[in-house]
């Protein structure tokens, strides 16, 4: 019988993390980039939970709570900044945001 060991979860998490990372690099919409970051953080959460189960240690699961709180706080701040910019720009395209360079 085929069993799902935690390795599978870890690999899945790694894939999700990579998708998030690549997404952040290729998408131009700030909101989508932002979601990609969330994807990465949640991939890490999955990793924590998998290790927690594998190690039979509660610590990993506790960590997830903290990460969730942090992610929520980031969302609030990030959206705030994005809204402030969109009010002035009417665009969510990051490539437009390059006043400063060099």
């Amino acid at each position, binding site marked *: 019988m085929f069993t799902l060991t935690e390795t599978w979860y870890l690999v899945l998490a790694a894939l999700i993390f990579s998708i998030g*990372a690549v997404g*952040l*690099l*290729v998408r*131009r919409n700030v909101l989508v*980039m932002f979601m990609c970051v969330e994807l990465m953080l949640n991939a890490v959460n999955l990793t924590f939970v998998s290790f927690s189960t594998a190690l039979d240690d509660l610590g990993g699961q506790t960590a997830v709570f903290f990460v969730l709180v942090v992610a929520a706080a980031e969302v609030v701040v990030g959206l705030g900044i994005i809204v402030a910019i969109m009010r002035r720009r009417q665009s969510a395209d*990051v*490539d437009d*945001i*390059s*006043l*400063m*360079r*060099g």
Partner: protein
Amino acid sequence: MTAVWLIPALPLLGFVTLVVLGRKFGDPGAGIFAACMVGLSFLGTLGVFAHLLSLPHEERAISQTLFTWISSGSFKVSIGFLADPLSITMCLFITGIGALIHIYSVGYMKGDPKFSKFFVYLNLFVASMLLLVLGDNLLLTFLGWEGVGACSYLLISFWFTDPKNASAGKKAFVTNRVGDFGFMLATFLVWVTLGTVNYEQIRPLAPGLAAGTATAIALLFFLGATGKSAQLPLFVWLPDAMAGPTPVSALIHAATMVTAGVYLLTRLSPIMAEAGWANDVVAWVGALTALVAACAAIAQNDIKKVLAYSTVSQLGYMFLAVGTQSYVAAVFHMITHASFKALLFLGSGSVIHAMAHEQDMRKYGNLRKYLPITYATFMVGWLAIAGIPPLSGFWSKDEILAGVFNAKTFGNLALWVIGMAVALLTAFYMTRQVIMTFFGEEKWRHAEVDAHGHELHADEEDAVDDHDHHHLTPDHTPHESPISMTLPLVVLAGAAAVAGLLNLPFGDPLKFLEHWLEPTIVGEHELPPGWVQALLSLAAVAVAVIGILGARAVYFQKKVDPAKIEKPVFAHAWYIDETYAKFMGGPGETAFEDVAQFDQKIVDGAVNGIAGGTVGLGNRLKGLQTGLVRTYGLGMAIGAVALLAYVVTRIGG
């Protein structure tokens, strides 16, 4: 008399006071105040000097620790001063000549809108220079080293309205940073190997250094010295530094700061004694610099540039002496050179002052009639540097050459020949300068009427000391400078005449300087026996006389037979160059021009190239900084992948 700290503290106090109150003191108050501070410092130095003399020979060193600056673990550095014969000798001429130049500047800078600022910098310079020589460890010396560099830079760019001056300042900064890098590395190497940077502690430990380490340390310090003391290949900044006011050229770029490299190597004679072939390098670089700069001096028409190249050349002599372990001769020449070169610079300043800030010697002539005091004192300086006995330059130069003759340095006879050649060239270019400036016809009267329609000043105009814009007109009548300027000239002329008495070669009791410096120097090489020295002296005098007569022949021939050569030679300065090129029988004018070209194109180019390359690299990297969020993300991702790729190679290891 343990108030050694007062010596640098007084000019520093002057600096601080002038920063705050300089404007209030005004012109000439600020200048007089600054001069007084340096003068008091000179008196303090004399006091310490007298105290040292009263001590027994071997105990002549006062070390005074103010407080511990850095102490971490076994490593301790204190803010402390070491007054020993070497440092006090330096202090004596720094404060003595410094005070004279301050007095001179009161007259020279009169009416300058930034009068008080000038003295702010000048006092800071003197304080830094004194710190450099009095510091009892390498770090304090380095502090002074940086301080004098900064002041030099500030003063070169003093008249910053001229972009050329600012760029000359920058060039000084760039080349000096290269040298400083050597200093830093060497200091670290000393500290790593000996565990201390204190001179008195280095002394007993130095013989334990491995030969390779000592050589490396010596070479790195020498790199530092080539920057500060304008030696090959870092000498290019000094001629450009003449853009600064003339008293600055006299004080910083002739008498004091540029000798810091010589001081440093002399101070580190315990390490130099272990440094093997590094000494040969020092000697050869010194000799070659002396030769190249002397050749270049011949091709100059700017009165200050001749002196600038001459300074480089004389510094080369000092390094030649250091490299052949004739430290006493090096210090001796440093003292005599400080007096006669300061004299010559101040004299040239007086000439420039009289000639409406024109620096082109081709427009001078017959000035002895108008500037009697400047002329008389300049004559003393000229004969001193040319090496005519009994003036000071003869004795010190002679001692260096005798030392070289007897040295065990690689190729010492070749070095001696180079030294003699430089002596000849020195006599030649100084005579040329004297003739062009003080003798002959009053050429500025013909400036506008040039046979070929050339404006004579066209190519030299940028070198003019132009803080005010009078122009030299044909009906100009030069006037002797005010007393504040001529008095220092007279005093310095006296010093330049008799400074040779410090170390006369006639018998042991007359070698005052040698006995005085003996306790601080390690590994001083023996001079040849008396009769050899006497013969060498005769040869040196002969060479000097040939140089003078040669120049006289070249520059006076037109006087003797005016009908024949008057027109072309008077009209075209470069005919003169051609004449001396023929007279010399060497590769001719082009050779000298080539030297000047080499200086300007190759060496300058290299300095600019390094700076330019760095900037170019920066500009290229700037392209990566697109301002786009995703590019930066990509950069980070690439970095992360690189780190991960690295750890993959470590897996299982």
